[in-house]
């Protein structure tokens, strides 16, 4: 049970790790790193789901009859693209925030907002 489902344990561990970083860290770049880890864990989850025991790559061949499910792979390709777009946008925003506030620490930004 514990070892047989090790891929799911990795997914959950990564997911919680990423989520924790998003919540606990005040540095905007670190938050984005956390977000990326969080998203990546979901990618691994989808790919785990696609695995069929004893199945080969989903390419039609004469000597195989069992294939892995290719659909989750396709889905996750889309999700990866979305993830890249999110990270890029987040980094761009962080740059603009740094120009406007002179800092990328949540505490300092909020202090400046409260003053104005």
């Amino acid at each position, binding site marked *: 049970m514990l070892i047989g489902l090790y891929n799911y344990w990795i997914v959950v561990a990564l997911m919680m790790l990423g989520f924790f970083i998003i919540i606990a860290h005040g540095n905007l770049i670190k938050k984005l790193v956390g977000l990326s880890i969080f998203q990546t864990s979901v990618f691994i989850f989808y790919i785990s789901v696609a695995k069929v025991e004893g199945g080969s790559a989903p390419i039609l061949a004469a000597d195989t009859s069992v294939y892995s499910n290719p659909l989750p792979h396709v889905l996750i390709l889309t999700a990866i693209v979305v993830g890249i777009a*999110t990270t890029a*946008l987040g980094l761009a*925003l*962080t740059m603009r*925030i740094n120009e406007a*506030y002179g800092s990328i620490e949540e505490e300092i930004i909020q202090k400046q907002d409260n003053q104005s």
Partner: protein
Amino acid sequence: MTLHLPILQVIVPLIAAPLCMFLKQYPKAVWLFSLLASALTLLISALLLQQVLTSGTIIYELGGWQPPWGIEYRIDQLNAYLLLIISAISTIVLVAAQTSIEKELESYRQSYFYMLYLLSLAGMLGIVATADAFNVFVFLEISSLSAYALIALGKDRRALWASYQYLIMGTVGATFILIGIGLMYQMTGTLNMNDLAQRLPEVAETRTVFVAFAFTVVGICLKLALFPLHLWLPNAYAYAPSIVTAFFAATATKVAIYLLIRFTFSIFGLSFSFTTLPLQTLFLLLGLLGVFIASMTAIYQNNVKHIFAYSSVAQVGYMIVGLSVGSALGLTATLIHLFNHALMKSALFLALAAVMYRIGSVQLNQFHGLGRQMPLTMAAIVVGGLSLVGVPLTVGFVSKWYLVLAVIENGWWHVALLILLGSLLAIIYLWKIVEAAYFKPPVHEAGTIKEAPYSILIPVWVLIFANLYFGIDTRLSVEVAQSAAQSLFGVAP
């Protein structure tokens, strides 16, 4: 041509968005072009609604691939109703956009604004039109990513920070939905909503499905700003360009409510959501808490955009209370309020765009004396506000009426009382604005402030008249909402 309307609905703004770049040098041309695209989606959605009302649900197979293998677009009454609301509000807001955007954004950013606006519109229409669970996630991210960028266009540097916070929370929410969809796929092997609805009951009593449900609902609730997951909303609405706020306040949360209805009522089914799991109590509690806490917070705000943003959170609370009733009448109340709230909030925020255009600020102390200096704009805010409170002859009354009816039908007298009490709180924050505009000595010298330009005033008053018209002639909103609600209950086991 009419055969392909369901996909054209989404494709038109999606293709129009990048085409805007060819006209980049001429912001005014880009505006006309996007207005044309948006008006076209409005036309398509009106045709779709008419088609659905006369001949029933439209099923469209993308690329001719049969569902559940291919992606299916399915337009039933609920979808067509939502599509019409979104495309209509988008078009009216876009009419006013040029004047306001020219003033609020640097010239090199204006063309990008329209492009992002169209992308966001395409995303929202896509979420509603599709019947594929994964497709929902993709469109959700299209609309959200462009929303983050649109909010970051705000002049105030706090817009950047608000956008960043929204990005983090929104992405967490969308990823939650993705996890939920993955778990559902794992259990059923399908992504088609109809197929999911048929296959989920067989495996409903498993922990995987419980977890899938929890992730999906929490993710959607983050998107719809249900209390206490609303923290991203007030600042994002307050510091975004005024036009963006008017568009999102009227449409973005509505799309999320639609998703919630789809997932809890059609896919998981009412008995699973409300009987097997305690969603009913949870929704009732959070909805009412949202109404009260957000309304109280609104009373203490000094930025008028903040006041209306918190009021949006409160109005979402009413819609969730309507859902929690769990009857066809309750769902009808939610759907009517969805339509009506879109009318009120787009009118109010557009009026604020007019104030922003003339004064450059929406702080409450800048409103002093505006009742005489900008009489038409202020009158619009008062009428829109009365509609928000739920005064008879406005749309707000119609939705409160149905909500109270639905709650009383269930025997929840105390909830009905609380709903009325919540409306009183709305009077208080509305009064603060009225007092500032009409009863305080003017802060701006006489003659320096003129009435807002007609290009903004006309759309505002079109929306205000819609607020009054649909408060009296409820045929469109109530009848479609009623039959959509009944058909959802007919399908749900």
